[in-house]
């Protein structure tokens, strides 16, 4: 693999810094009678290089937690810390930059633009970052090679199979060379064989490049492969096993 992340540096950092932490985070939706607590006083720390599974029943608050960790939403109370800094204090443009350059996202629904080519889809984060067209194409082909999709680069995203789509989504998450990949039910839409292949790619990235994984899942097998399992029940953290 030719990706530029300096895994030695990331691993060294892992020993000392919490790359991301949730401190007494509560999230409520709605007002008055309709008020609903989706997350209740959740605290945990994640070190760089860990692979964390967030598990729990449907509706327990896993996605809500992941959105908060990924700084796409703000907690009602409590704080999210990124590398020891309060994310709530970050300005809008710093947040945008952090999400663009430090985070990668993989979703259960792929969110690919079906009419655009696979390559176009993959380089979207680089386009947003303002990378020039030649450099981003080159980088796009690199990550497509990593997920073994380089021969599909020019195909329309619509023409891919489910497993190929999810690999394209992983390539897109990788293209900005992130430190953390957030994945919400990455294998939820895939049969077990293709799901396995996608998992393999994710864990390979974790092991070879030290990319921190935060994976929301209710797939037991996937959860077992993670170095850590955080269990959520009715918005509360009820288990944290390594």
């Amino acid at each position, binding site marked *: 693999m030719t990706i530029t992340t300096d895994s030695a540096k990331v691993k060294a950092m892992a020993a000392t810094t919490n790359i991301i932490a949730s401190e007494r985070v509560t999230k409520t939706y709605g007002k008055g009678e309709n008020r609903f607590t989706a997350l209740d006083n959740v605290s945990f720390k994640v070190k760089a290089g860990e692979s964390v599974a967030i598990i729990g029943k449907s509706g327990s608050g896993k*996605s809500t937690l992941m*959105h908060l960790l*990924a700084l*796409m*939403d703000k907690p009602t109370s409590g704080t999210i810390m990124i590398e020891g800094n309060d994310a709530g204090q970050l300005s*809008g*443009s710093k*947040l*945008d*930059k*952090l*999400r*663009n*350059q430090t985070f990668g*996202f993989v*979703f259960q*629904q792929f*969110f690919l*633009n079906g*009419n*655009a080519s696979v390559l176009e889809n993959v380089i*979207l*984060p680089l*386009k*947003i*970052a*303002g990378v*020039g*067209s030649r450099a981003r194409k080159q980088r796009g082909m690199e990550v497509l090679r990593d997920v073994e999709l380089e021969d599909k680069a020019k195909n329309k995203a619509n023409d891919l199979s489910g497993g190929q789509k999810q690999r394209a989504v992983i390539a897109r998450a990788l293209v900005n060379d992130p430190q953390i990949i957030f994945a919400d039910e990455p294998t939820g839409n895939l049969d077990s064989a293709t799901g396995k292949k996608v998992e393999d790619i994710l864990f390979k990235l974790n092991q070879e490049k030290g990319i921190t994984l935060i994976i929301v899942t209710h797939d037991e097998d996937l959860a077992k492969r993670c170095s850590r399992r955080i269990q959520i029940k009715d918005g509360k953290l009820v288990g944290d096993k390594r």
Partner: protein
Amino acid sequence: MRLIDILTTASTNMLRSKLRTSLTIIAIFVGALTLTLTNGIGAGISSYVDRQLGNLGANDVLIVQVADQNTGISSDAPKAYDPNRKTTTSGAGFSRAVLTQADITKIAAQPGVIKVQPEQSVSPDYIAGPNGSKYQVTVSQNIGAAHLDLAAGNNINDASTQNQIIIPVSYVSSLGFADAGAAVGKPVTLAVTDAFGLTTLHTGTIVGVQQKGLIGGGGVIINTSFNNELYNAQTVGLPIATKQQYAYALAYFDPAATTSQVDAIKAGLKSDGFTAQTVQDTIGVFKSVISGIIGVLDAFGIIALLAASFGIVNTLLMSVQERTKEIGLMKAMGMNSRRVFMLFSLEAVMIGFWGSLIGVVVAEIIGHLADSIVSKGLLSGLPGLQLLAFPAANVAKVMLLIMGIAFLAGTLPAWRAARQNPIDALRYE
């Protein structure tokens, strides 16, 4: 995101739903076409009128009349009878005050007035050319250094002591000339009859042939020396007081005078009891009628555009709705709200751009076709008239206006897209 990427993304987005985009562009196109055509007609006619204005007279002349006239529809109340004020009756039984020799002296004394030339109205019995046939004719004295639209020859030299005359093209063959060029330099005869009923013949040399026009023209134009000769012959036997009565006088001022200097002269003459108007003033009414009509036509164009702009709002709201997830994803990936706003409002501006470009191009094609048809047929009697004119500045203004309207129409959908919350968008089914 780089500007170039925003531009290309906006244009690919625009083409994603081709049918919907095309329909919106057609709506804009209709508005643009209407607006460009009405503007084109406006520009075409007013440039023609400006050229015709040149036929009427120069811009260093004021037409001075006595102020207390009851003519026209502008008077507030009838003026009291003044036994000292001489009047003359004109055609339709209007009676109006005339200028006397004393008035002429007063006008000449006005600061800024270089020279006064009382109008000595001449009505010849007929004009005759080399073939001897006699034709009715009206005569106008050359007003200053008029810029005539000439088919042949030169303008009159008003300082010349020779009798000079310009005839309209319509007289060329009747008087016995082969063509306009052949008439130049040839003599023609004007006949006048005096108070005793005696008819005298006066010869002048044709110096030019005037193009047919919408205003002015139709009669012959003669220089001052010829006019004086005819006037003197025509007024033989009249008492001196009658002879020295003029409907109006021409007051010359410095051609380099500024508008405010001309206004000062006008004000001075007004306080002396005269009205003074430049040729442009007198034609102003005509022009404002034309621009009124153009204004109404423009209003139709604007209404069409307003309707079209709701089309833009609708189209873009639909695509914001359709692309909810995509917008959410881009925002999740760190695209800032301002860029999202730009992405959608640029798409609106592009729709406006294409609609207006197609509208302008089609309008120009229609304009050229209409001009070539009309100048051969309906309006062939008005050479030099270009029905539709499209100065680049006007076209650019129309396009900018439409793109501006499109931008405004795009702001609501663009704002909706920009303030979208990434999670809501990602959860959106």
